[in-house]
């Protein structure tokens, strides 16, 4: 087996950083040699702070994803099935969507103070939109003949949604879910970095303020791994669950 080329650049960069730090004997408050970062990572892993912070961040992200993504999905079903409703909601949706989710941080701070509720509220707001926009397009794009079949069979509305609409739109809904998951992690960390004393984002901020660059980079690399792993997991699930349909859904996004 040939050496994977993708690893060359990261390994060279690590070696160069290590060598540069050693040779110059630099003591810095902003960078640390990779060996120190690895030690800091092991320490944070061993004393449990890293895993606790990860749990807090992922917990808040998942709760927000469930609440906001769920609400977005419900509205997507309503707007996707009723063109009239979709037209009526066009202006309100266009008016609220461009508000950057981080702009709501101060409002949530006033309403709930520090802690999980404010973070979950902001993650919810952020996850609501991709689910709504992609979900609505997915449901509005269902093969009309399927809906005719449902009508001919005189399915009730819940049966129509459960047996026809959701299964037909599922591949694209999963794409929406994957994007919303990425958003939830990004927004949760952002809230933690700017205000909320919880989770990985706060751990990063704390390490920077304590002038511990080794710990800061350890948290940063871990965060990258978590984000990458989450995305890889969902991509794998998408491929397993939907096969070619998943790729088609991705294309028409």
């Amino acid at each position: 087996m040939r050496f994977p080329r993708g690893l060359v650049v990261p390994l060279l960069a690590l070696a160069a950083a290590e060598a540069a730090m050693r040779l110059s004997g630099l003591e810095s408050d902003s960078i640390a040699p990779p060996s120190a970062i690895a030690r800091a990572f092991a320490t944070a892993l061993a004393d449990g702070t890293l895993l606790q912070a990860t749990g807090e961040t992922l917990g808040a992200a998942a709760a927000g994803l469930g609440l906001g993504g769920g609400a977005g999905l419900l509205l997507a079903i309503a707007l996707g099935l009723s063109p009239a409703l979709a037209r009526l909601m066009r202006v309100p949706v266009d008016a609220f969507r461009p508000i950057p989710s981080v702009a709501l941080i101060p409002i949530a701070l006033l309403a709930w103070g520090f802690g999980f509720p404010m973070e979950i509220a902001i993650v919810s707001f952020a996850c609501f939109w991709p689910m709504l926009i992609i979900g609505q397009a997915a449901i509005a794009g269902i093969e009309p003949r399927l809906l005719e079949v449902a009508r001919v069979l005189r399915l009730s509305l819940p049966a129509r949604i459960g047996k026809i609409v959701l299964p037909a739109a599922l591949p694209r809904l999963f794409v929406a879910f994957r994007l919303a998951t990425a958003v939830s992690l990004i927004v949760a960390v952002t809230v933690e970095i700017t205000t909320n004393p919880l989770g990985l984002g706060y751990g990063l901020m704390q390490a920077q303020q304590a002038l511990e660059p080794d710990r800061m980079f350890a948290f940063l690399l871990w965060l990258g791994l978590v984000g990458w792993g989450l995305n890889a997991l969902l991509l794998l699930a998408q491929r397993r669950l939907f096969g070619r349909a998943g790729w088609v859904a991705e294309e028409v996004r």
Partner: protein
Amino acid sequence: MKQGGELPWWIASIGVALGIVLLWQVAADRGWVSPIFLPGPDRALAALREGFAAGGDLTLHVTTTIEHMLYGWVLASVIGIALGALIGSSRRARDYLGLTLEFIRPLPASAIAPVAIAFLGLSQPMVLAVIAFGSVWPTLLATAHGVASVEPRLIEVARALRLSRLQVMFKIALPNAVPDILAALRYGLTVALILAVVGEMLAGQEGLGHRIILAARSFRSPDLFAGVILLGLIGFTSNALLAVAERRLLRWQGR
């Protein structure tokens, strides 16, 4: 349903939006929600008027935020297109850099803020660095994808015409990538606005991000809502402008 055309639906939809604002006013007036964090639209508008009046500070903060957003975005776009073109045009570059890019891409852009603070302090360059780092990815990846996905027959034509690599890049590959790049630029601008707000909240100097966090700390909710409304307007306008530019520039596609 389509008989009346689209106009009545737009009017009805605006009506729905106004209804929501009215509901907001009623909720605030009746005290359904605590006025500490939900001022009525009347008080938010008054705060807007006051902020833009002579002696108000909103003009300064709005221009600062727009400047941050635009400078960071332009920086990210130039770097993103250049690097994306390089990576997209070389199989070897993709082999070597693919894994690294794949790792950095899902990293929350705001996570780079502590690192930027460590190097640049709580300063304007820090804000710009965070914005540029965050919004470079969509453009870089879209450019690389657009450049790499040139129709093979066009490459054959280029070879038959003995075009140089540079000529292929500017005459075939980059034009091929334009639709991808434009869509990514629009998304990058959205990211730039978000990160401008984040950077301003952290740097605590000027800009709407700083102003709204300050308003929250001193419980001035009308000022806070005025800032959020302005951020929404900036997001809406910048997105709409780029959407128009995109449609103009892509007219040749005939879609």
